[in-house]
């Protein structure tokens, strides 16, 4: 390909990027606007400028102070809850999914194939179907208004990630497992010392996707968490809505939404290499 023609590819790429960046720019723009301009921007695009003439950086600390019913404490509680739920869920998902996948890929037992198929079938089940039964179950266990309904299910695996891990484990040469057996490893040690270190790209995908999903999850915490001090950041953002569902202080909502996004963006850039490696696994042989 000639040099100028090669540069042409950047035209659709830049256009695509602009489309993808638009909501972000819009959020940033409003987050820095004065209350009047921000309110106007929600109903008309006339108030929008490429960059606000008088950026209100104080909107960010203000948003953190104003969230929830208690100043600062509401934000810190929500942040702590989000960090706790996300951290435990990510660790639990990686451990449980890889362990189940190891068993399905490497241990021969009766009904292994059927179990795998049943597990795959659960992927077809819309989450809305299990919402009410799960709520009833957790209520019967007395877990409503605790973080447990958000954390405990992660210890029981996730069909999609189990499938991903299983495909990776199945591609690891049998001789490696056999060498480990002769070297004195049992199944748990083979999983922990050989398989998990080998599947870092898959673990990166599982961890990043789970992190983003749990960190941004709104519905789950909304169903199970009621008290102000229990909610996660995603639900806490909702406090900028008034009792009639309308938006108040939209500049604060946008500012806090951007703050909430920061960990996801940082995580993506940190794990980018592993993530792309993991996504291309299986696509290219060797």
């Amino acid at each position, binding site marked *: 390909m000639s040099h100028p023609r090669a540069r042409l590819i950047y035209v659709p790429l830049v256009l695509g990027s602009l489309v993808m960046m638009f909501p972000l720019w819009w959020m940033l723009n409003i987050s820095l606007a004065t209350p009047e301009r921000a309110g106007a921007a929600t109903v008309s695009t006339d108030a929008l400028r490429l960059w606000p003439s008088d950026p209100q950086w104080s909107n960010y600390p203000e948003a953190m102070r104003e969230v929830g019913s208690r100043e600062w404490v509401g934000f810190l509680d929500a942040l702590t809850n989000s960090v706790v739920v996300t951290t435990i869920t990510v660790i639990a998902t990686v451990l449980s999914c890889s362990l189940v996948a190891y068993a399905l890929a490497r241990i021969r037992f009766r009904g292994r194939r059927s179990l795998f198929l049943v597990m795959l079938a659960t992927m077809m089940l819309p989450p809305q179907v299990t919402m009410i039964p799960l709520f009833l179950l957790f209520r019967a266990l007395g877990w409503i208004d605790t973080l447990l309904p958000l954390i405990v299910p992660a210890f029981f695996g996730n069909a999609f990630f189990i499938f991903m891990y299983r495909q990776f484990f199945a591609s690891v*040469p049998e*001789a*490696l497992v056999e*060498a480990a*057996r*002769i*070297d*004195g490893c*049992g199944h748990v040690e083979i999983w922990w010392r050989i398989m998990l270190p080998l599947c870092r790209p898959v673990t990166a995908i599982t961890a990043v996707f789970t992190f983003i999903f749990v960190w941004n999850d709104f519905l789950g915490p909304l169903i199970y968490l009621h008290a102000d001090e229990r909610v996660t950041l995603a639900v806490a953002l909702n406090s900028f809505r008034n009792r009639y569902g309308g938006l108040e202080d939209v500049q604060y909502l946008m500012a806090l939404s951007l703050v909430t996004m920061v960990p996801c963006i940082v995580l993506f850039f940190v794990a980018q290499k592993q993530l792309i490696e993991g996504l291309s696994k299986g696509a290219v042989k060797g």
Partner: protein
Amino acid sequence: MASITLSGVSKVFEDGFCAVDALDLEIEDRELVVLVGPSGCGKSTTLRMIAGLEPVTSGTIAIDERVVNEVPAKDRDVAMVFQNYALYPHLSVRKNLSFGLERRREYTSFLQRVVSSAYRREARAESSSIKSRVEHAAAMLGITPLFDRRPAELSGGQRQRVAVGRALVRDPSAFLFDEPLSNLDAKLRLEMRTELKALHKKTRATMVYVTHDQEEAMTLGDRIVVMNEGLVQQCATPADVYGRPANRFVAEFVGTPTMNFLETSVHFTEGRLFIMVAGDKVPLPGAVGGTLSPFLGRGVVMGLRPETLHPGAHGVAARVELIEDLGDRQDVVYRLDSGARIVGRIPSDTRLREDLRVHLPLDLERAHFFEDTDEGMRIG
């Protein structure tokens, strides 16, 4: 070190395929036994059963007189070198070597380490013992400079050395090698073969070595076990396997170029025993005649090694069809008047040309005779 005894060992897979059929084998202490045979003959399955990687369907395997059928692989005190090395890709060479020893540590309790100084002392001594064993094995194989590299950064030969080192460092009762050189190029294979032979001499360890390469088997083994279709065809020293093959399969499998086979029949005329070879009557020398006399009037198969076939003044008439000059020798393909093709090996200074008509004197004292049956058992 240890002896290994296999008594009536069979392996039948779930689909009914019988990979090994009632195998009896006694491997003595400090012996290097090579299991050789074509693909699917059951040699690797046998090795894997000894290692504990494959359960035995029937029969018993004993290591040093201890039956190990139900003993897991890690407790059999054997080390195995795999065909594709099976090095742990995420660990450095040093950690690959010490992995097996680390898993067998006795002083592993963190709590006891904190509270007991005697325990701490023992744990430290154990660590330094592991370190010195790893360094000793690495020095023996010349891989010390590779300690901090990962397997992906090593050449094929270096990986193979690390794989051998990983087995060596454990100082096991027996070493099991599963076609360890088959992934190497010809030159490196030859080098590693010599090194393995030297290693066996140095360590005097019991070794079981699997290969499909008969040349590798002949050069390495104290004894060779030739297998086919799950059955042992012959178990003997390399010289015996080559010089007195037990049946046609062994005779054909061992030796390059392979042995030539000619269908003959035994006759008695004018007070002498003859065989008919390609239409010629060839008188049998006394000893050979005695061996073949029970087969009078019946067909037998004569086997001739290529190195016994040199053109001469008398003998079976043939035409030179093809000459392969190998530098130090020539392999010559002859076409007999009966239509049969045989291969001879002659020195490189012998002058022959293609299409030349020659006579091949048959050295019946060095010929092998086999029954004309499916099994083709050796006569005499």
